[in-house]
């Protein structure tokens, strides 16, 4: 059996489920992509389940508590001299993360164009935005801790609010922090020509990008369920 093969070495995909059957029964590379990218996808799938467990447990404690749930709109309000603006810090953090997702998407694109300089600067911008996101989260944690929010209780209502908040945003913040380090490593390797010595393959930028977009994706769900609901 001879299949048509693409320049990457992967077989041309047959349409529909025929292609799926072919891919899984090929006895070698299944997804027609570098193993690093496939492994990142599978890692992200497992991470999806971890975050889902946190969000589902948050849902359950919020349903089962008989105390009123603190109103996020008020708890996360921030005043810039005047009246408190509801949820403003979280909105800014959301926009920062989306901006960083955009710069990352552009970096991946520039990587495939082998424009090393632009890839480096865009990845650096992404990392800086990510770091500022973590900084704001640290500010938010500090503010809430000063107001007396603890994992076992808080002055606003149901005690479970604190544990859900610290667990969910803490785990997400940890992902962002790890992502910043990851991006910086890849960015400087792009800059100093590390990947040129390995055949000039910039797939690695896309793999780092997948991780970064996933972090943004998780934030979309946290924003909707924890802050807005």
């Amino acid at each position, binding site marked *: 059996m001879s299949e048509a093969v693409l320049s990457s070495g992967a077989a041309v995909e047959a349409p*529909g489920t025929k292609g799926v059957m072919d891919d899984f029964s090929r006895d070698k590379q299944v997804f027609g992509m570098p193993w690093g990218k496939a492994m990142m996808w599978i890692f992200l799938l497992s991470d999806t389940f971890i975050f889902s467990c946190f969000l589902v447990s948050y849902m359950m404690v919020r349903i089962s508590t008989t105390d009123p749930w603190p109103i996020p709109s008020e708890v996360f309000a921030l005043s810039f001299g005047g009246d408190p603006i509801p949820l403003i810090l979280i909105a800014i953090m959301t926009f920062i993360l989306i901006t960083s*997702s955009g710069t990352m998407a552009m970096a991946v694109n520039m990587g495939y164009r082998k424009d090393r300089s632009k890839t480096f600067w865009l990845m650096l911008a992404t990392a800086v935005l990510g770091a500022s996101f973590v900084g704001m989260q640290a500010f938010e944690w500090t503010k809430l801790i000063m107001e007396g929010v603890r994992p076992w209780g808080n002055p606003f209502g149901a005690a479970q609010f604190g544990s859900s908040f610290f667990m969910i945003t803490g785990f997400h913040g940890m992902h962002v922090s790890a992502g910043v380090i990851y991006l910086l490593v890849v960015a400087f390797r792009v800059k100093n020509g590390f990947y040129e010595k390995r055949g000039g393959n910039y797939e690695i930028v896309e793999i780092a990008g997948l991780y970064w977009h996933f972090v943004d994706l998780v934030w979309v769900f946290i924003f909707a369920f924890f802050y807005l609901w």
Partner: protein
Amino acid sequence: MAEEGQQHPIKIYLWIWLLLFVVSFFSYMVDYLQFQGALRWTLILVFMFVKAGFIVAIFMHMQWERLALKLAILGPPVAILVLIWLMSYEGFYIEDSRVEYYGESTMEPQTPAHH
């Protein structure tokens, strides 16, 4: 296309970027304008899924990947729906038990939190 190394026109990224900003603004407005009840929850979910869809399909290039990968990655999370269903069912049961045995009521109006 996937085999070409996911090379796509920059224009599509810029468009999606802009749309993500607009949709995020809308979802913030849901809170700012204090929509309540079913309307609030519907809007939150709609905007959430639109944003998630754009990120996965375009930024993560899932739209251009092979069907085998799409099924392998997007299929399993559907199981989470079962977990959500089970845990909400259990959650309501626990709440009912607490009200019944501890006599706590959730029917009182929510007192606004002051700080």
